[in-house]
């Protein structure tokens, strides 16, 4: 079982200075298939994203962090020991 990503993801979103709408747009641009409402549910941990969805969200956040001069602080799913 993967841990709940909700809190981590939404905190990262806030750290990245992205609104829910802005993050969804980036997620959508990367090919994300979930609606904005579903994305919010993932962020809050109310819904569990698929591994792929998680990685798309994580990458959307990480690209923002790279733009801000950071690295890829949000872990991807395959980074975790399962």
């Amino acid at each position, binding site marked *: 079982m993967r841990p709940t990503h909700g809190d981590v993801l939404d*905190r990262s979103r806030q750290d990245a200075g992205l609104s829910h709408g802005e993050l969804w747009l980036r997620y959508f641009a990367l*090919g994300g298939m979930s609606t904005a409402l579903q994305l919010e549910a993932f962020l809050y941990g109310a819904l569990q994203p698929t591994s792929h969805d998680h990685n798309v969200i994580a990458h959307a956040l990480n690209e923002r962090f790279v733009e801000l001069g950071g690295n890829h602080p949000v872990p991807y799913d395959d980074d975790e020991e399962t």
Partner: protein
Amino acid sequence: MIAQWLASADSLGPKVTTGIGPLADFGVAASFAGEQAVLGVRGELDRVTAPVLAALFDAVISSGYPSVLLDLQDANSIDAAGLAVTADAASRLVAQGGQLMLRSPLTENARTIDLGWLAGLINQELRGPDEDRLGPEQTTLESLTQTAPRIPPDLKTVTGTLANEDVVHGALRLVVALARATVGGADGASVTLRRFGRLATVAASDATISDMDANQYATGEGPCIDASLQGRWYHAESLENETRWPAFTPRARSLGISAILSSPLLAQGQPMGALNIYSRTAMAFAAKEQGLAAMLATEASRLLSAAHSSASDDQLTDRLQGALRTREVIAEAQGVIMERQGVGENEAFEILRRFSQQSDLSLRARAQDVVDSTRQTELDLGPPEAD
């Protein structure tokens, strides 16, 4: 940027209804900066007006704002009742790990008592030796808005527009709490917003209220939907005799709801959603409650207008088109990788993503490289099936 509204002393919303009472000089302006709520008191804070401040404190604290700044710069006087309310709020905030701060109590307007000792008292009680954020040292409201929590100041300048939406949602949650706390007979409240072409509840006082809203979205009818789409208010005085929403009404009654008041929220004149107030008591919402609901809806609308104007429809369209173009390039590159390496769609994304991560180039740039590589060598490889 900062949300603001006035709660009048007589809770009638004199800005909306007629009949300005003798307490019209008193008012509390609430505003929000990140995780901090600011309550600005104007006029005489005494045993008549203190309950209004108490209700606002209740609303702010139950909305989860850990830090409250009580701005007494424009308070003419404060008596024992006012102090009791303030002290009570302070102890509740501290119990929750939060804090109450005072701003500039030592002003010439503080006629009746020297408020400095109060600042000292609360300072001692709440902040211990760390006094630097208290009292007269507090800076202006404008500077507070620039200290959104968790976001370093240097990022702020980079990103330009910060999580405006968080501020708006926080404020809408507070509107819900305010509606519940201040509108007589209210057993619950919610805010519905039209987002991405559909209605959704963005704030609700409890699960029953969320269910109430969900029932309206499910049946496609109800006062909240009509108010949200038509931009006018709907009042179901008594669901027992209600005939306008035959599919929704029985569901509402089964949840014990007897009266509903939905006030429209407008952003730049366009219907954007509704503030819904529910009661278990039929005929709960008379003219006074309607006036207060209208005032809260007006203030929520102002907030939405401010947030909405930060990204015009044109800008949004441009950004959506940009996102679509990126999406197409990435899909095309995924197709190429799927064909070349015999992998599935998600695996192709993972390959692109690792490429991107290793090179610090954006995934779109990497995808473009992949697409370009095929165009240079094998023009007939083509993109994946469009359908």
